[in-house]
């Protein structure tokens, strides 16, 4: 069971890392426009061929 004492801090660190990533994406404005990117993805790839 003593492995728990290692895993708990690790899990916390991981969670803090996720929070950091979340903050970063918020600052980049990723949550400002939730509609357009889902449509933009349809054509960007094919565009390079034409």
């Amino acid at each position: 069971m003593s492995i728990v004492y290692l895993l708990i801090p690790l899990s916390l660190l991981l969670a803090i890392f996720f929070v950091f990533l979340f903050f970063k994406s918020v600052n980049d404005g990723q949550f400002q426009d939730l509609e357009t990117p889902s449509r933009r993805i349809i054509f960007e790839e094919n565009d390079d061929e034409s």
Partner: protein
Amino acid sequence: MVAECTHCGDLLSQARLTSLKDGDVPYCCSGCQTVHQILLDGGLDRRFYSIQGKNRGPSLKNIPTRDFSALDFEDAIQMDFFIEGIHCTACLWVLEKLSDLSPEVKGSRLDMGRSILRVVRHEPGGFSKISQLLFDLGYPPHAIRSESESAERLVAQDQLTLKRIGISAFSAMNIMVYSFSLYLGVEGTLATVFRSLSLLVALPALTYGAWPFYRNAFFALKSKRISMDLPISLALIVGFFESCRQAFLGSNLLYLDSITMLVTLLLLSRYFLARLERAETSKAGVLHAILPEAVRDSERHLIRIDRVKVGDHLLLRVGDTIPADGILISGNVAVNEAFLTGESQTISKGMLSSVLAGSQVLEGEALLKVEALQENTRLGQLSRQVDHADSVTTIRSEKSDRWATIFMGSVMGFSILMLALFGRDDLGEAMKRSLALLIIACPCALALATPLALARGYRVAARSGILLRDPQILNQCVQMHARVFDKTGTLTQGKPEVQSVQWFLENPAMLVGYQSLIYSLELQSKHPYAGSIVQFLENIVGVQEVPLEAVEEKVGRGMEANRGGHRYFIGRKDAEFSGVGFWEDQTLLAQFRLSDQVRTGAQEVIESLKNDQGEIYVFSGDDAEIVQNISQALGIKNFEGELLPEEKASRIRDLKKSGGGKSSVLMLGDGINDLPALAEADIGIAFNRSMGGTLDAALVRVPVIFLKPKLSLLLDFEAIIKQFHFTMKRNLWISFFYNLTGASLAVSGVIHPLVAAIAMPLSSMTVFISTVFGIRGRNV
């Protein structure tokens, strides 16, 4: 022969078909031709039409031209535009390919949700050419003077709230893991570790995350108001210290999981609501100003409207929106004052006649002496009445929060009472029970119920073409006391259509020739009647454009031209003449009768509304006789014509009074002349009178907007309101039941925190499911 327009896919009119030569690409109108040509030149056509597929773009027939020279003022590198008519992925694609179409553009990015396009230039310069390109493509742009400060502040606020939600969720989720172990009876060192970790991890949520609650509660206290944030803050603070105490005593009953989860859910629901409300107000805010930003002075120089003073002289040209109230000091113009009077009549204005800001110049050119500007104009006064009504709306939405506040207040009262009653015997136990009560009775489901239902209602409405600018309107009373309709443009098409033509010809074989002549002549006029006659004639076999000489426009009267040695005139020779006449030299050859038609489907909608409770009224600014004819044709008993905008509003006020506040007065209108009445009504609905056409900008501020010219949307809307009310009632009962059971168990001290931890998300889930299935719109 049948041919489809290459761009929009509409069938070509007969006139277009006959003039089509072999090898020509078929277009329904020159607008579509322009768009196709632009795409072709930019090499974007194949891709555009393949993305668009069957979902073809709107036809560009009958869209008036606009002058963008005012935008050459801006010496900017980037500019934001509100774009009309965005409807599919192909729109997005072509708008972001703007750099392929114009050498000036470096890049462009579209936000579809808000319909805002940001265009960046290679080097600073004007934006008139780019605007014209957007317009020619079929996306009428409205320049926004770069994103205003307030908009940027809103974005920053949004991001801050998101971060608070993130932090709180982090705390809540981690604590939940620890709490489950504690509830399941972990003992010894591990328990101590979990307890201390819980306290530690709770801190970010209770400080950074919950900060807005403390702040709001503080300000509410300071201004002696009761706010829902006060009990929430109290519960959070007391809950934390009590948990600390429990932890030191070695108890596993911490409330940290509940209170951090509460913070997360409350923040989330508030973010949800704020975003929902903002999405629409931002769209509306863009169109606030319908008056032009730049005008021409008497020497034809462009000047900014804010530099114009009373007494200045301004030039009015065809297509202009008149920027200020004033008097004409030279020249003649024909104007459309539909925004004020509701009549789509063209009015001729000569020397010394007064004109009103917001009217459209249809023909002619004149000099205007400014008498009133901006807020002081008639239009400004009308808008102010709407602003006043806006503040009324806010009061109404606060009322809907009262339920939850009352609930919280009584819960708090109970817990204090309990503390006072049992505190003397066993302070610890009393503390524990009242806390359990506070936390379990915290109206999580209740807090979620309203935002969820509003958001769902908004989505369902949007799907059928109804824009709820103020989703709180769904909270309005579902019982209809009266439904009031405007006539012009609402019950009727709002534009004249040719009813009948009477020909006075000696030789019937000449008919097609004359028809072609009229068609060609009217093509060159911008008068609404001319458009209707063109539309009528272009579907007749054999009619085509013919060359004319010495074409001359008689302002407000008609068109004149020479052909084959005769002088032809179409229009009204004098005010007595009814309809539109066609003269060869002095001989009357034809008489067109035009009138406004009842909208298709109006009859069915009115019939089905009659089965519901509530009287139906027609209030119109139009001629009393016309109003009577239309109303009687639809079987409506209550009608009144020749009403001024304020009179309409006061009629609505009277109706509201007679309703006694227990039932709603609904008003459906399409013009700015309906604005005061729409603002006065409990439920004001703005109606977009024609597909693809633009809604009068000022109407964008009305709480409900029907985006499609279909009266049946009213039935959809009422169905949504009814479902919303039913669902809200059901949600309230669900959360009430949950809270009541939870509270009574907490008071008796038998509830296990594990049960509470499971029951809390469960109740929210039930509310969620109930909402999604409860509000589904009509015919689903």
